């Protein structure tokens, strides 16, 4: 059986004819060619497949594509500028050596993006708890937590700066 669905990914609309059992991660990777989102377990534990669904981190391996029709999906490909310039979070990962093989990285980035958007005031300990929902086999996690924490404080500082300027 084939189903017609409409999916919005990184602001772009796609019409797809897919089997109902097709997962979101398969659609992203194989139908839309967005291979930045990775698959590490297909049973919802590793978080390599983490994307944002209406702004909230979600495991794309646990969702059927048909379930998220009408939602805004964001993947790692949306973070950098079209010319390749990395965003602040990506730069923090690089500066802190928060990635080695890079396989968990897209999932970690999307997890962090979703979380920081929700909790911009997060403490390092809270960030560590959130990072604990994804697996990384290379880094030992410390530098991932540090990268996200650094990005969060830089964003807060920038925001404060903006406030100061507008009230000055």
């Amino acid at each position: 059986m084939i189903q017609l669905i409409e999916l919005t990914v990184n602001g772009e609309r796609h019409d797809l004819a897919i089997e109902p059992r097709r997962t979101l991660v398969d659609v992203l990777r194989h139908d839309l060619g967005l291979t930045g989102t990775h698959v590490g377990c297909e049973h919802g534990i590793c978080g390599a497949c983490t994307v944002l669904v209406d702004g909230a981190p979600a495991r794309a391996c646990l969702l059927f594509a048909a379930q998220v029709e009408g939602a805004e999906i964001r993947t790692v490909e949306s973070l950098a500028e079209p010319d390749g310039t990395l965003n602040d979070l990506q730069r923090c990962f690089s500066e802190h050596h928060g990635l080695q093989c890079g396989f968990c990285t897209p999932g970690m980035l999307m997890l962090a993006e979703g979380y920081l958007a929700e909790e911009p005031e997060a403490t390092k300990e809270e960030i560590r708890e959130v990072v604990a929902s994804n697996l990384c086999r290379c880094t030992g996690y410390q530098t991932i937590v540090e990268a996200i924490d650094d990005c969060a404080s830089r964003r807060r500082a920038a925001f404060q700066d903006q406030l100061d300027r507008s009230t000055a």
Partner: protein
Amino acid sequence: MAEPPQRSPHLRRDGAWVGASVPRREDPRLLAGRGRFVDDIVLPGMLHAQFVRSTEAHAEILSVDLSEVRAVPGVVAAYSAADLNLRGVTALLDRPPHEFVPTAMPVLAHDRARYVGEPVAIVVARDPYAVEDGVEAAIVEYAPLQPVVSDTAALAEGAPLVHAEAPRNTLVDVSLFATEGIDAIFDEAHTVVEVHTKTGRQNALPLETRGVVADWDDRDEQLRVQTCSQVPHQVRTVLARCVGLDEKQVRVIVPDMGGGFGQKCVVGREEIAAAAAALRLRRPVKWIEDRRDALTAAFLAREQRYAVRAAFSAEGEILALDADVVCDMGAYSCYPFTAGIEPLMASAEMPGVYKIPAYRVRGRAVTTNKAPTAPYRGVSRPQYVMVVERVFEKAARALGLDAVELRRRNVITVFPYKGVNDITYDPGSYLESLDLCEQTLRDEGWFSRRSDENRVIGIGFSCFSERTGYGSGAFAQRRMEVVPGFDISEIRMDLNGTVSVTTGTLSHGQSHETTMAQIVADRLGIPYDRVKIVQGDTDRITYGWGSFASRSITIGGSAVAAASVKLGDQLREIAAHLLEADVDSAELDGAGGVRVGDRSLSFAEIADVAYLKAHLLPKGVGPGLSATASFDVGGDGTFSNATHGVVVELDPGTGGIEILRYVCVEDCGVAIHPQVVEGQARGGIAQGIAGALFEQVTYDDAGQPLAPSFMEYKVPTAAEIPDVRIEHLETPCAFTESGAKGAGEGGTIGAPAAVLNAVNDALRHTGVELDDTPVPREAIFRALEKA
């Protein structure tokens, strides 16, 4: 173009780039989701493969019926062993039959299934969903045999045989050392301590599972195999042999790889079978291992049993070490290392950092009905270091001495040191690292917190070294049929004065695209972003041994350095000629050119002549700018070392273990990129902690795997892995080109010992000692309950 960075004050370095934590060349693509991992590769008309796998741990295969499979919509082909008729994979040691029994690993099992998950047939379909349906339609008839599921069962009198040719299920039985008179030493010693340890079976667990895309290319007349492997040339050799092609008819390419840790440094039968199917069908075939298979049917490691005795004098001098090591290697010998990999590593290296005058060891590899094993980060060293460090803790208790002080009295301090194991140790900082690690924990106040009556706190250490950069000579001592060791690099400068350099090593997280570029940049005096590292392609690389055993920077890094120096000489020769000067007066100017006195030529100007105005070249110098060099570590290789110090707190209510503090003092010689070295240490430590406290591959009595998903196989997260304070010491290696020693495995090696010692220190008031890993929480709970 990148600017040379600020020097980090605490580390020496030999140029502008080596020693600096520059931005990684790998990062932009990986962060943007633009890496190319094997599952990202899509070829026109590509088919998808999966395997029918044995459901029995040990059985005769009576029949394999794939007719229903072929009828499943979308299925294109299904092959059993009989259909493909491939040569098996046999790894050999050059040892007599009483020491080593060769066993073949068939690409697909035919008459006998030896573990649950063993591939029996390959199914190829138009999409990954259809292939799953196809696999389910296979009918395999088994006549079950009694499975052998532990080392003790394997060695038991009358045990069923996993391989008929291997009596007592023993594949390797080697006694490498036996100091004369050792029994008398034990008889007369003041104190003798014993350690009996069993370590759990572990999965190296790269987050990216194994996978391959294979296709026959008519234009190149080549079977092109894109596979996540740490050893592309070895895959080429085995694949060519199995399917009956010439080496040049096979091209193995390694895309970005999501970790390996050793699991991908042996040749996998699935990659051979998928390539054979592609060859047969003349269509691209992709196989991506699913997590269940990765947890149950991929190469595993680390299941070992030690019975060790050590003799000490009253003054705390170690006099002798006597060890019996049994490694449960599972169903097959891996290629190229064989089932000898773990017992031979343990046997050769166990005396480690200590001055041990007498040593006897027997190392055995037994075969069981479990998934086979491969080298895994550290290979046996996490285990034997743990055992030896337990020896020191126990001896300290028996002698009434402080355990760190006891180590101090016994570590090697004068180098080079010729060990009882016939190894010459090059200089290291064994004592210094021990002192600094202890001092650091003392300064941080952990020793006073340890005496808090209301808390159950323990402190543990491990002091160890790790041979890195095994050259051909060192590997030859293992007597493998194929002897890894050297590396070859070719360097080429293009018209713009930028260079590309090949390496036979294979970075998959270790950052060689950056670190090797730093080494080259310093040799030529150009920014590191004008150096491109080429790796992982058997058509572009002359020959390579890939990346394992912390060999890449020591050996591969030395080869790229040597090739760079040669190219530099070529540039100087041409420049001197063009400037009508003597070649000895020409020198690289450190800014992308050659200087003679106050005149200079840029590399681009020299390249312009070398390629576009060859008639201007000096006599005897051919056109083009390229050089080739190879490097091998002579002698016994170089030893990195470290001391780890760990503070744990035990929870009497649950038996839980929390790591309060982790300090690592490491010495890997000249650190090319300190941040990368620290990353390797932290990641390694996380894997060591995983083995000590969390992960274990378990089976029931029938040999059925009990941990087929991440629900059962507990991989530690950021909640369990602590931050690690790292301090660097630097004892440069005298014979690698950059003074570097290997840094890939040390973290993993030191962690289990330090963690286990800390747990036992916390239990000191209970009288209970725990020596097995992963440490059972119930045992802690019971010990604390009684106390």
